[in-house]
């Protein structure tokens, strides 16, 4: 029982830290209606930048977080430029950046694919030492604080004139352009901001798990989409914006708890990505299937007879 509790704590902590990444995915996927595949690369980028700075350069772990976020911002901006200035479809632009980040991440790590942070102090290990908490509890506290800051920031930002213009761009590009908004700018900004959060999340997870890995972002986009979907199912779709943002992080926590449970039940860890993909696929398929079924059911050959 103790083992279960500990693994659940760990799962909740991971869920919150990954939740920052999911908030980034939420910006592009839900607000801007862009499927941005940069995420897998920029998550690992954040982790790698953080690991190298903390281990090799002895940089303060908090500053390393900001550096990782900045790296994510740049990665997002590259995708944004490819998509807006050179009009490459968003999915392809994201894939190009993601692929190139694989090589870049290896270069950042000096050719190694994994860099442990075991002996170095991180924000999270520092906190757990100072307060006598477990690694998971310290991760949870750091995660909750960062998540609250990010949610408050996003809530404010998407209420501003620029933020409103960004939301409207995801809604109806023709309209906002006709109302004098440079939609290339808003898209670029959203991709940049989104990947900045993803990079930050990668760095937090790196500090929490005590290693940076070039493969740590693989499948991040699917985890992000699954978490968004889980959050929406749980919290409904017609809630105020701050609830939507909160539900995104909650979705991420639930995703990691489910993962911990099924792994404990003996599922092969390698099958987890398949399960995530199935969750997302189902979430995207069900609304379509339901509406098709309704249409079919409502059809009657003789026309409407009753009513």
């Amino acid at each position, binding site marked *: 029982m103790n083992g279960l509790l500990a693994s659940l704590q760990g799962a909740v902590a991971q869920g919150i830290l990954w939740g920052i990444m999911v908030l980034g995915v939420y910006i592009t996927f839900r607000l801007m209606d862009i499927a941005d595949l940069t995420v897998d690369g920029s998550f690992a980028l954040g982790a790698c930048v953080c690991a190298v700075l903390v281990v090799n350069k002895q940089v303060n772990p908090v500053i390393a977080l900001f550096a990782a976020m900045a790296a994510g911002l740049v990665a997002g901006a590259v995708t944004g430029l490819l998509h807006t200035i050179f009009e490459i479809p968003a999915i392809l632009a994201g894939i190009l950046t993601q692929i190139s980040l694989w090589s870049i991440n290896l270069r950042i790590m000096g050719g190694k694919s994994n860099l442990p942070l075991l002996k170095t102090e991180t924000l999270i290990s520092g906190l757990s030492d100072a307060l006598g908490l477990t690694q998971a509890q310290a991760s949870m506290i750091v995660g909750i604080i960062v998540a609250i800051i990010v949610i408050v920031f996003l809530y404010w*930002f998407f*209420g*501003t*004139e*620029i*933020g*409103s*213009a960004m*939301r*409207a761009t995801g*809604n*109806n590009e*023709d*309209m*906002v*352009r*006709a*109302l*004098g*908004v*440079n*939609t290339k700018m808003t898209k670029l900004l959203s991709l940049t901001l989104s990947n900045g959060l993803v990079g930050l999340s990668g760095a937090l997870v790196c500090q929490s798990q005590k290693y940076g890995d070039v493969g740590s972002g693989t499948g991040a986009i699917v985890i992000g989409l699954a978490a968004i979907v889980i959050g929406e199912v749980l919290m409904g779709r017609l809630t105020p914006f701050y609830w939507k943002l909160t539900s995104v992080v909650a979705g991420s926590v639930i995703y990691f708890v489910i993962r911990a449970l099924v792994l404990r039940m003996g599922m092969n860890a390698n099958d987890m990505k398949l399960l995530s993909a199935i969750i997302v696929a189902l979430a995207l398929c069900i609304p379509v299937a339901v509406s098709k079924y309704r249409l079919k059911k409502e059809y009657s050959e003789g026309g409407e007879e009753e009513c």
Partner: protein
Amino acid sequence: MLTISNVKKTFNKGTVNEKKALNGINLHLDEGDFVTIIGGNGAGKSTMLNMIAGVYPIDSGKIVIDGINISREPEYKRAKYIGRVFQDPMRGTAANMEIQENLAMAFRRGRIRGLGWGIKSSEKDYYREALAQLGLGLQTRMTSKVGLLSGGQRQALTLLMATLQKPRLLLLDEHTAALDPKTAKKVLELTEKIVDEQNLTAMMVTHNMKDAIQIGNRLIMMHEGRIIYDVSGEEKKKLQVEDLLERFETASGEEFANDRMMLGQ
């Protein structure tokens, strides 16, 4: 006010689908002109409005508003001068955003957007009044999502949004064509009211010859990317639908004659 000189546009240049959409357009609008535009399919009516709005770049020529050459400005920069209502009611508004949020977006047309609140509480009274002017009861539904409105309501809202910040030029691209006759009439009345009250300069594409004659002070007819008929003032008031049809047939007839001549050679 608006001067268009020798504007040309060819789509898909150098391919089998090459289409000369605008064939040297020359047009001058005075302050307060309300021009209706008629013409057959593919005559270049919508293309002309799109060129003025900057949806696509023009191949050659010049578009000048208030002495400012906007020929090469991107669409979002021209929005400073131009208010637009599209044919499709879905295109003019953001469905997932509130009515007041849409208005707030429109209120900021032509202004630099910063990090101030996207909608200030002080603006809301103004929006409420403006919505009341439409006479559709929308002032009580300011926080409803626009997606819940009917096509006619959305089109009326778009019209309000296009004129919330007085535009130098209002472009109406068959903005009543997708509505049922009753709603179309209502939106058209609103259009006339708003244009009249604000003394706007406006261009309206329509397929309804009667509307084209009754509304505005000037009428132009387009054919194959050219303006072939331009009438204003008293002469326009006296026009009959038959006159326009005749004009139209003459124009296409000449084209027909030309074709025959070419074949004959």
